[in-house]
């Protein structure tokens, strides 16, 4: 598996670009022409070849650049990666999970050699070759969770399972959609979701929690979530909101196709063995409107979803002010033809857009 890794930025000059391969495998999250919350969980057991679902931890062309951006965020603000003291064991569980998964799924890129508790980990794309003793933090340059999440795309929330609830007791959060690990660490499932409108009344979180509490070793699950971001900015944190918030006002009808990005989270859930904790990786994929419109089904569907989205959701997802401009752009691609159910682009069967 040879991947050409991009040299690109997710800030300042924003040189981020998706190749055709990246666009085709982008996880468009809408399976129908409207959107409402649901507990849309399914088993995380592979997927179509080449898709983002195929491997346990997907690696793509953005890997090296994303890890570079993470390192910058952490240098600037170490509080984005925290682990309460009792979570170190879970950190080791996560390190093992990622190292085993990646070395098996991408043998050309990652190697793991184990001799009892003496481990050697080789990460070719990042130029890392480290030998350490498993369960001994003094032999690693960082705590185990920080060490491995500096080498894996997406955010990671490590949840302690106690008292029929899940507690956000550790995490590395540098690509989040606007929530603060430093503030939320220590909260339980309902508390950290408190600001989400509508979902609590619908009982979404009660059902989701029951499902998550029963996830077992060897049987991970996944679902998709989404929001909107202006510019391919990964670090849309509350901490820096006073710096990036104003970018939302720089959209114009001329630049919206390039600047407005659909931001999709592939959320996966793995039970961790020694700690009985649950890890919740949140993998972020970005695609701008121009690129999305190259898939006819997505072109038709996105307009309808955004047009009919309840106001509370558009507000909570932060794009209520830009919605009119978004609809002006998107409506040009909606020719009113029917769309097939499901998220896949279906280039062979869906008629091209008349633009």
């Amino acid at each position: 598996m040879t991947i050409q890794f991009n040299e690109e930025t997710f800030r300042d000059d924003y040189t981020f670009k998706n190749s055709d391969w990246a666009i085709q495998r982008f996880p468009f999250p809408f399976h129908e022409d409207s959107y409402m919350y649901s507990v849309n969980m399914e088993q995380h057991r592979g997927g179509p070849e080449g898709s983002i679902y195929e491997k346990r931890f997907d690696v793509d062309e953005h890997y090296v650049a994303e890890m570079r951006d993470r390192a910058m965020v952490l240098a600037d603000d170490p509080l984005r990666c925290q682990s309460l003291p009792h979570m170190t064991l879970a950190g080791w569980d996560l390190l093992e999970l990622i190292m085993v998964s990646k070395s098996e799924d991408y043998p050309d890129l990652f190697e793991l050699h184990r001799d009892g508790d003496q481990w050697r980990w080789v990460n070719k794309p990042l130029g890392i070759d480290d030998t350490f003793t498993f369960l001994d933090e003094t032999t690693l340059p960082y705590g185990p969770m920080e060490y491995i999440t500096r080498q894996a795309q997406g955010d990671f929330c490590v949840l302690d399972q106690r008292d029929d609830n899940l507690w956000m007791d550790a995490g590395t959060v540098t690509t989040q959609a606007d929530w603060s690990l430093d503030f939320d660490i220590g909260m339980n499932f309902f508390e950290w979701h408190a600001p989400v409108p509508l979902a609590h009344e619908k009982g979404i979180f009660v059902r989701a929690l029951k499902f998550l509490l029963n996830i077992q070793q060897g049987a991970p699950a996944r679902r998709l979530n989404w929001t909107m971001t202006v510019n391919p900015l990964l670090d849309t944190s509350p901490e820096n909101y006073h710096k990036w918030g104003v970018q939302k006002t720089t959209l114009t009808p001329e630049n919206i196709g390039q600047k407005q990005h659909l931001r999709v989270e592939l959320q996966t859930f793995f039970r961790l063995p020694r700690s009985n904790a649950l890890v919740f990786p949140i993998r972020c994929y970005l695609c701008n409107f121009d690129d999305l419109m190259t898939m006819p089904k997505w072109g038709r569907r996105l307009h309808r979803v955004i047009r009919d989205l309840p106001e509370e959701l558009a507000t909570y997802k932060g794009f209520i002010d830009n919605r009119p401009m978004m609809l002006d752009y998107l409506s040009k691609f909606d020719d009113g033809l029917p769309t097939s159910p499901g998220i896949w682009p279906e280039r062979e069967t869906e008629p091209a857009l008349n633009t």
Partner: protein
Amino acid sequence: MSKFEFPESIRSRPVWGTLEPRAGLHHLMIADAEGAEAILDVATPELMAGAHIIFISKGTGFGDKLRELNPAQYYEGPSYEASASRIRRVLQDAKMSTQVYLAGTEGLMGQAMRECTNAGIPYTAVQTEHRGSTARRMQCVHCKGITEDVAIDPFVCSHCGLNLFVRDHYSRRLAAYQGVCVDAEDPGNVPKSVGIYE
């Protein structure tokens, strides 16, 4: 009577209760200002025989009435900060037969609660009752500084000077509510401040 009726809010906003006597050999009671009235309301001779009261008066003068309850131990501190090390020491050697009661402002209860949870007591086991001021401890999500006694929305962060709006999202670990920049998307456009509960 200084009880405020808090409006219903999101799941991460603390909901305070009403103190009641509980089974235990020791009763640690920590209060500030009007919180003393909650202790006066719940006190019984049995409770007081095993009680350690720590009170921060803030000029309300309830000290004498609390002393008259004849608790096993009584301490009056000039501020929460001055009392914190004493609270930690008492919790350090406490047994599971200890019950904890907190009363007064959200700021006092939040900080004392944190000492309890650090010592290993589940937060749901610590009794609370709000009395008196409804001003909040606010953490600025941008600079992480805490601004005390905030009663208006928006307010100015006492550390970095940003204009922040007041959220109901609350962190037990920080014992503070979250403040977020109010004019990020339109710099300079700061709404006029109103009382938080107006």
